[in-house]
């Protein structure tokens, strides 16, 4: 006769009860969701019950999924360009000893300098080494602490090669990405959407997920711009870009007029990182504009500059385009100002947001963009629910018709199985996607496998005229090996999917994997319990499986 230990029943009851408890909020999704939205409002969902819902993926609730790559190489290139300007002006003073000085190979991740007199190369290296702790090189806002020995300097004949050490490069990359994630988060928050996810992915990538957003246009307009704002001195203005630019000067086009070019001083008077605030406003003609405030030190710089340059133009440059170049009419001491341009109200709003959130340290590229409208998501949920319901009913009926009472045992186990999966998804905070629902439906079909294996074995034993209890015992024993092998192999597939899959596919692997675990649990423990109870209390003379 079967043994019913207290521990066994206790364990099964606890697992079933708690999974029912944790799965329950999902069966009243909208009620619980409303409660989570307005915790203060009275709700029909009682407080003592858990209210953790299964997170729905973007494909089910609608939203925008965006994979971005931060162009960190650009930052490194910029650093070397910067360094070259400084190194050159320092070496030029020693031209007598060094001969001609030339930068060769401007590929970006290194600085190669060729000098005329190779016998004095050590002298040049000594000069360059002074830059090894240059604060200038890493002085911008996102640099973190300044480190010594940033540069690896090597020489061959008359060529000096300067590179960053790998470690330095990684640190730099990390800082750029972290800063980017921060800026992206600030900008996405400005859209006022609920629960955006912004996470770093891999070495250079950022994944942005904004549920509930119907279109990606607004998001791209916010994220696609670096929003690097500088105020530069204007050297001259012309209708062609053929300026005789000096090393510390740069040619920049106009944002509004394709035939207008400015020659500007490279080093800005003040830049956007010194802004303390930016708000959309209107200029004296009632046209949309953006007003801003500088921090005290920049306000002083800006004040002094305007005092000394009354009557000459200065340029407001955004992302390498001059948006306007007003003439300084008077001394501006207060550190506040206004940017005019040919803005629409929307554009001035957006520019204010961009300036408030700060400039991205590097340009970002959109690698992957998926927008799912809310209608489609809702329909996917409905379709998934319906398919799960119909599929479930079909399987339940088929099992009942094939195995009779034992089929009903398996069916109850199957339903508990689904509840277990839902509970685990809620507890683990996993995301349910449409392929995830498919995974659950597939689990419904495959979950009965373990039961079928056992039942078929029991049948065979009955045919051999074993006693009832022996048939069941041996059936379970012999089927175990197959059950383990069969489920381990499917588990392998689920695990591989989890690590290689992205987005919705990952959701599928999660429900498939959880389904495997719970189906083995229910078949080996719960169905077995039913059978044992049946034998114990009904004492059947013949077993009909």
């Amino acid at each position, binding site marked *: 006769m079967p043994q019913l230990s207290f521990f066994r029943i206790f364990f099964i009851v606890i697992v079933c009860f708690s999974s029912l408890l944790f799965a329950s909020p999902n069966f009243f999704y909208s009620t619980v969701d409303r409660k989570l939205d307005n915790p203060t409002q009275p709700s029909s969902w009682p407080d003592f019950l858990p209210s953790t819902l299964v997170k729905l993926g973007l494909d089910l609730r609608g939203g925008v999924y965006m994979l971005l790559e931060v162009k960190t190489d650009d930052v490194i290139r910029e650093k070397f360009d910067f360094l070259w300007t400084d190194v050159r002006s320092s070496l030029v003073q020693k031209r007598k000893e060094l001969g001609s000085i030339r930068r060769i190979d401007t590929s970006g991740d290194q600085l190669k300098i060729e000098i005329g007199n190779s016998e004095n190369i050590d002298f040049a290296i000594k000069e360059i080494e002074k830059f090894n702790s240059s604060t200038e090189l890493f002085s911008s806002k996102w640099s973190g602490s300044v480190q010594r020995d940033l540069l690896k300097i090597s020489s061959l004949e008359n060529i000096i090669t300067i590179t960053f050490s790998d470690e330095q490069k990684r640190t730099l990359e990390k800082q750029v990405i972290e800063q980017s994630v921060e800026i992206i988060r600030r900008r996405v928050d400005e859209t006022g959407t609920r629960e955006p996810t912004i996470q770093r992915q891999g070495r250079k990538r950022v994944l942005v997920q904004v549920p509930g957003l119907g279109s990606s246009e607004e998001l791209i307009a916010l994220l696609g711009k670096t929003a690097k704002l500088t105020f530069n001195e204007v050297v001259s203005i012309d209708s062609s870009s053929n300026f005789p630019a000096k090393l510390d000067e740069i040619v920049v086009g106009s944002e509004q007029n394709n035939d207008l070019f400015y020659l500007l001083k490279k080093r800005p008077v003040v830049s956007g990182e010194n802004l303390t605030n930016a708000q959309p406003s209107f200029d004296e003609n009632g046209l949309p504009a953006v007003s801003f405030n500088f921090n005290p030190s920049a306000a002083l710089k800006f004040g002094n500059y305007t005092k000394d340059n009354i009557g000459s133009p200065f340029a407001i440059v955004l992302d390498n385009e001059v948006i306007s170049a007003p003439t300084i009419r008077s001394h501006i001491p207060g550190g506040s100002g206004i940017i005019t341009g040919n803005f629409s109200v929307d554009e001035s709003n957006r520019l204010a947001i961009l300036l408030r959130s700060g400039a991205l340290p590097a340009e970002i590229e959109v690698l992957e963009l998926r927008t799912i409208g809310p209608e489609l998501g809702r*329909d996917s949920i409905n379709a998934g629910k319906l398919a799960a319901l119909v599929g479930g009913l079909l399987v339940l009926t088929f099992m009942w018709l094939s195995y009779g009472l034992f089929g009903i045992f398996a069916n109850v186990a199957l339903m508990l199985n689904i509840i277990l999966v839902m509970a685990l998804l809620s507890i683990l905070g996993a995301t349910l996607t449409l392929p995830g*629902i498919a995974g659950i439906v597939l689990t419904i079909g495959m979950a009965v*496998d373990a039961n079928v294996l056992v039942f*078929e074995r029991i049948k065979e034993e009955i045919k051999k005229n074993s006693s009832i209890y022996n048939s069941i015992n041996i059936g379970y024993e012999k089927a*175990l090996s197959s059950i383990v092998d069969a489920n381990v192999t499917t588990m392998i*597939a*689920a695990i*591989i*999917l989890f690590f290689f899959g992205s987005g*919705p596919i990952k959701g599928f692997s999660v429900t498939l994997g959880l389904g495997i675990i719970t189906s083995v649990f229910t078949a080996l423990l719960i169905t077995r319990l039913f059978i044992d109870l049946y034998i114990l209390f009904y004492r059947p003379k013949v077993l009909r499986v």
Partner: protein
Amino acid sequence: MLLRGLFNQSKEIQFFSFSNVLSYISLGAILVSIILFFTLGLNYGIDFRGGTMFMVSSSEKIKVSDVRNTLSGSNLGDVSISQATNPLETLSAGTLTSTDNIFMIKVEKTEGQNIETKVKALLLNKVPDIKFLQIESVGSKVSSELVRNGMLAVLFAVISVLVYIWLRFEWQFALGAVFALIHDVILTIGVFSILRYEFNLSIIAALLTIIGYSLNDTVVVFDRVRENLRNFKSLPLLKVLNMSINNTLSRTIMTSVTTLLALFALYFLGGDVIRGFTFAMIWGILVGTYSSIFVAAKILLILDVKRNWDEKESKAGTQF
């Protein structure tokens, strides 16, 4: 009960009496699939090809040729348009009504926002009440990574399975199982090549699940083979294999049927978005069930298995 005893056939089916013919058919199908893959190729989705896909709906009938003409003159690269079978025809609860026409429009270019705005404007101009249900854009950098990851995943799955079966059984079993898997994967790719269904990320997921399922089936048969080899030491291998397949036949059919029932529900009711995935799965279950009998067991027969399972020196073949 109605179905009870349906599979309780007392007569043994002689599976290997017609297995030679089937082997040739299988080999032929594999060959054809490979040829199709290299000639006709697969209808890759934007996941793997890169590009931008618009899923749109409109209550008016959209003229495909009209839309094509509008778009193809706009420097967007390759343009393809297809009408989706309405996922909601069977559904009354949906927010979209069954009178909506749903179309998939794919263009080759990606360049983020510009393409999206451009196509949206062009389409709105042509079809004023158009609704954009889903827009996906995958750059070439990501799509090539997705292709690589997909292939790696399938390769990884096959190798891990090879190792697992080898540890649990013997190398002949591992080869048989893995060959059956490769058979299933190649045939699935072949079917996608013929039917021109879109081959995207979810199909890779389906392939991996098929690998898992097919193996599931194979392992159950192999498990019985191992047991019977122990119990019937003097019986010829062919008889042992045939007996094992017959022993497990009702289980094979039961599990296939329940899984197929669930999958058919998904196929007909689960909506258009996962229809390709469920199709791959249904095909995979059928092929997988076939291959565990006629490919995996057949290879075992060809390779011959050692029969001294009881000897202690063997580390493999641990039975729980």
